[in-house]
């Protein structure tokens, strides 16, 4: 069997290639090559005023800008010793609900479902099952509308600031979304039921799951960093447990635990560690579809996302209903030199930021550890685990099965240019 080579992975956010070297029916080399621009942002932030940081880091990703905003504002607030208004905190959760909704709907239906349903692309899915895709677009759009109502824009919302929000969104604008959110909750329950029926390839991995954990809510912002192997760290202790290292062939950094193990962040980790904190409809759907936790099959990330979609629709409804803006939406900042860390759960997994600022509020040092960097060594290890199965397959099927595994992780290999490749004829 020939080596498996996918020079440009389709349906991942960014650019990456996959190489599996086979010899005598065994995988001897696996490389996920990432063309992520080297840590440009960390350098770019140095010398910027802290209030610019959320809007600059938001540009790292077109799919999960809110995650970058949130981890950065929490880190900078910690550096200044600021605690935000409780309603501002609730509004941040609501904004995160919007991001989870749009990101998960996109990934479930348009990025991973084509693999599950044996079609080449979402375009082919649109041709064979247009109603499924239209439903997906509506589910996604509701998330974008929520972001727009809070952040002024549906892509790269701009209202979040260090200290809270620049302004309270109008209660009427949020309440107007309730009928759509109710529809979305019902549709997401159907989505989870459908996700449970899909033919996932068989693969069980004994992962070390790592996610933010909060005793009173589904871990998204704040809390402790919990590992399924028992390690519990506060957010400022993160770098004591998880180390990032440069790997020569890739310009993305790779992470491992302090014991040298790979670990998994993202929807499977969250669901397995935090299912007790899910909203009731999501707990009910787990019962109804008979999901046994923990989920250890990476392909079932789709199912985990579908269950989370139910949760975030239901939480969004609850947060809109209890929304009561009062007083100032932000805390006035008193600048001082300091250092702070922030970690939140991006849709793809734990996203950690650390900043040092001077007494003028200018960034002196920035460190950003995205979820995909943490998962990269795990994806490669999964591909090794998959290898005995795929060497038995036709080259085409083997390639697809391996690509599907990578896509199941929803890797965000960010900062991709987006420009149109234009074939010019008679222009």
């Amino acid at each position, binding site marked *: 069997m020939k080596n498996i080579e996918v020079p440009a992975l389709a349906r991942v956010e960014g650019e990456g290639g996959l190489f599996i070297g086979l010899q005598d029916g065994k995988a001897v080399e696996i490389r996920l090559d990432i063309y992520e621009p080297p840590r440009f942002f960390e350098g770019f932030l140095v010398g910027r005023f802290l209030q610019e940081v959320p809007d600059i880091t938001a540009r790292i990703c077109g799919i999960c800008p809110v995650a970058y905003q949130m981890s950065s504002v929490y880190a900078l607030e910690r550096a200044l010793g600021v605690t935000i208004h409780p309603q501002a905190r609730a509004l941040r959760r609501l904004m995160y609900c919007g991001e989870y909704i749009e990101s998960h709907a996109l990934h479930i239906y348009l990025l991973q479902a084509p693999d599950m349903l044996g079609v080449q692309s979402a375009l082919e899915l*649109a041709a064979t099952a247009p109603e499924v895709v239209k439903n997906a677009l509506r589910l996604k759009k509701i998330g974008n509308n929520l972001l727009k109502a809070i952040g002024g824009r549906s*892509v790269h919302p701009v209202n979040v600031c260090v200290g809270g929000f620049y302004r309270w969104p109008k209660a009427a604008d949020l309440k107007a979304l309730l009928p759509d959110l109710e529809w979305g909750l019902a549709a997401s329950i159907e989505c989870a039921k459908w996700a449970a029926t899909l033919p996932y390839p068989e693969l069980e991995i004994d992962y070390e799951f790592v996610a933010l954990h909060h005793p009173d809510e589904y871990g998204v912002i704040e809390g402790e960093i919990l590992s399924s192997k028992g390690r519990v760290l506060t957010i400022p202790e993160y770098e004591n447990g998880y180390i990032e290292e440069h790997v020569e062939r890739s310009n993305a950094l790779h992470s491992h635990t302090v014991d040298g193990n790979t670990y998994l962040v993202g929807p499977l980790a969250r669901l397995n560690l935090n299912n007790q904190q899910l909203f009731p409809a999501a707990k009910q759907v787990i019962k109804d579809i008979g999901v046994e936790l923990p989920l250890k099959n990476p392909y079932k990330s789709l199912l985990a996302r579908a269950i989370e979609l139910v949760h975030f629709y239901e939480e969004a409804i609850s947060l809109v209903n209890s929304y009561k803006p009062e007083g100032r939406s932000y805390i006035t900042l008193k600048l001082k030199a300091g250092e702070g860390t922030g970690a939140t759960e991006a849709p793809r997994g734990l996203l950690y930021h650390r900043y040092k600022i001077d007494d003028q509020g200018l960034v002196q040092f920035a460190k950003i550890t995205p979820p995909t960097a943490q998962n990269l060594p795990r994806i490669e290890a999964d591909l090794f685990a998959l290898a005995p199965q795929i060497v038995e397959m036709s080259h085409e099927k083997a390639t697809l099965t391996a690509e599907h595994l990578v896509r199941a992780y929803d890797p965000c290999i960010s900062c991709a240019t987006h420009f149109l490749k234009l074939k010019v004829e008679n222009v």
Partner: protein
Amino acid sequence: MSNITVIGIGQSLRGDDAVGLEAVRRWREQFNKTASRPEVQVEVCELPGLGLLDLFEGADSVLLVDAVQSGASPGTIHRIGPGELAAFSAGSTSAHGWGVAETLELARQLGLSLPSIHLIGIEAGQMEIGASLSAEVESVIPEVCLEIEKFVTGHA
């Protein structure tokens, strides 16, 4: 009266990839009277992905202003009308999940009713991360602004 939406697209941190954003911003400043007419919507949007479809709502015609790559010299201005849409539907094998071309193709595939879509494409030179616009591309922005103005006053 016909509703028109002008959409500048790009990635502001990657050199010439930002030209669509910059051109629409400058047109809006320079031709504020046109840009603030009630039938004219202006959107400056980084990496909209599928969200592009939402921006089309309520528009009879849409003008996209975006960086393109076709092999022409940097700064070349391409004007593409609705009849020539096929010219920019080829990129679906790219690694970029949901580019403009893929999004339009998906909408066509679903049979969604789309406004009449026009493109002013500016040939990009360099797309280094952290770079600003190249001199070649920067120098054509005034002309692009005039093109946008001509289009909007002709269609609105």
